[in-house]
């Protein structure tokens, strides 16, 4: 088998990409998510994490990520609750060890927000958000979902034909 020679610039680019992929920081991207004792939805909760919380990635198991919080707590989160922060990627590939300033991070987070909704609502008094707020407040406790799955022979207890 012929060896493939990778030219130096390509190797450098590869290194950049590898560095990006190796980033071991995650940031919570949902409003709240439980830090769980085990990589399962209904595992006991260690702590409640909130949007923007920085986490250190320890291990990966399927769609689950074992992480450590700034407070030193260790547990599991589902991969859909967190992402690799883009500013970490940029700081790492900048050549010098720089951190994006808090100001720029805030700027990046500036977008369609609560403030924009407030302004939109002020302009459109005819569009009611009463049911939207009621809908957003509908909460189903994890134990209720677990019970629903179990009693309906769903989830872990599902059958096949």
């Amino acid at each position, binding site marked *: 088998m012929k060896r493939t020679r990778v030219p130096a610039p390509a190797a450098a680019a590869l290194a950049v990409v590898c560095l990006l992929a190796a980033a071991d920081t995650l940031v919570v*991207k949902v409003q709240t998510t439980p830090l769980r004792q085990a990589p399962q939805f209904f595992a006991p909760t260690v702590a409640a994490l909130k949007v923007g919380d920085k986490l250190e990635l320890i291990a990966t198991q399927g769609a689950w990520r074992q992480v450590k919080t700034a407070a030193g707590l260790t547990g599991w989160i589902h991969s*859909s609750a967190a992402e690799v922060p883009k500013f970490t990627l940029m700081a790492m590939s900048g050549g010098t060890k*720089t951190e994006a300033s808090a100001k720029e991070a805030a700027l990046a987070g500036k977008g369609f*927000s609560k*403030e924009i909704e407030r302004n939109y609502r002020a302009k459109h008094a005819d569009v009611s958000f009463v049911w*939207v707020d009621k809908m957003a407040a509908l909460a189903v406790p994890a134990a209720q979902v677990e019970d629903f799955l179990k009693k309906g022979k769903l*989830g872990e207890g599902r059958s096949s034909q």
Partner: protein
Amino acid sequence: MSARRPFAFAVLFVVLVGFAASSALAQIRLPGKIGDAAQKAKDAAKIIKIVRNGFGDITEEEEYYIGRSVAALILSRYPVFDKPALTQYLNTLGNAVALFSDRPEIFAGWHFLVLDTDEVNALAAPGGMIFVTRGLLLRCPDEDTLGMILAHEIGHVVAKHGLQSIKKSRLTEAFTALGAQAAEAYGPAELAQVTSIFEGVLSDIVEKLVVNGYDRKSEYEADSLSVKFGAATGYDPNGLLRFLQTMVGDSSTVSGKGWFKTHPTPEDRLAKSKAEIGRLKVTPALEEVRTPRFKQAMALLK
């Protein structure tokens, strides 16, 4: 030769992406090399352009706020069928299916509501606010069918079909406006500009969702995700076929909506979904144990 080609493409791709990223980043004066305010604003705008350029770069929080307003506009067209026990059942079922989707965790959770209309329809706003009509519930013969329908709507949200209907030019305008000023808070002019872009975003999505309906590609993808998520939950995926079957030859489900233009026919969806189900390694069966709670919830429709 053929075995090496994918590798060569992969290397080429990595090299191109690497070069693109490094050359773009090289133009930016990163924090630490402090310039004047104007320069900082320019840099910030460049950062935003690199960081955000497509619908996939809309943050979860933005998706949620877009979704809330889309939901408000849907709710301005239809009244709510307000039966707390039915709403509770629907939300428990929906959250159970969402757990087995590719996006169990979403910014502010998954929420479901029944709309009081005879129309047979289901709508998913970005961010996980999902609506089903009373007319649709009356067509569901069993919990598994309803589970598959909710899995289809969850599929639309997971695949971000709502966000994909935002015009590309609108997104570019949004990201440029959002990155234009290096201020931490919106100034009055900027707030007005971003709000007007926000209105445009809402109209793009509502037009697709409520007026025209999704195109064939999005519907087939949502059906495919329905089979994947529904079967993973443990529901009989044939429930999707049972529902689609009721739509064959029934023009009332699409009446006056002009959906025929872009929406696939139930026959086409049936054929594709049948093939999708055939590819499942394990096909869950319908369980009678779920019948009493389903019947109890549906009795509330009367």
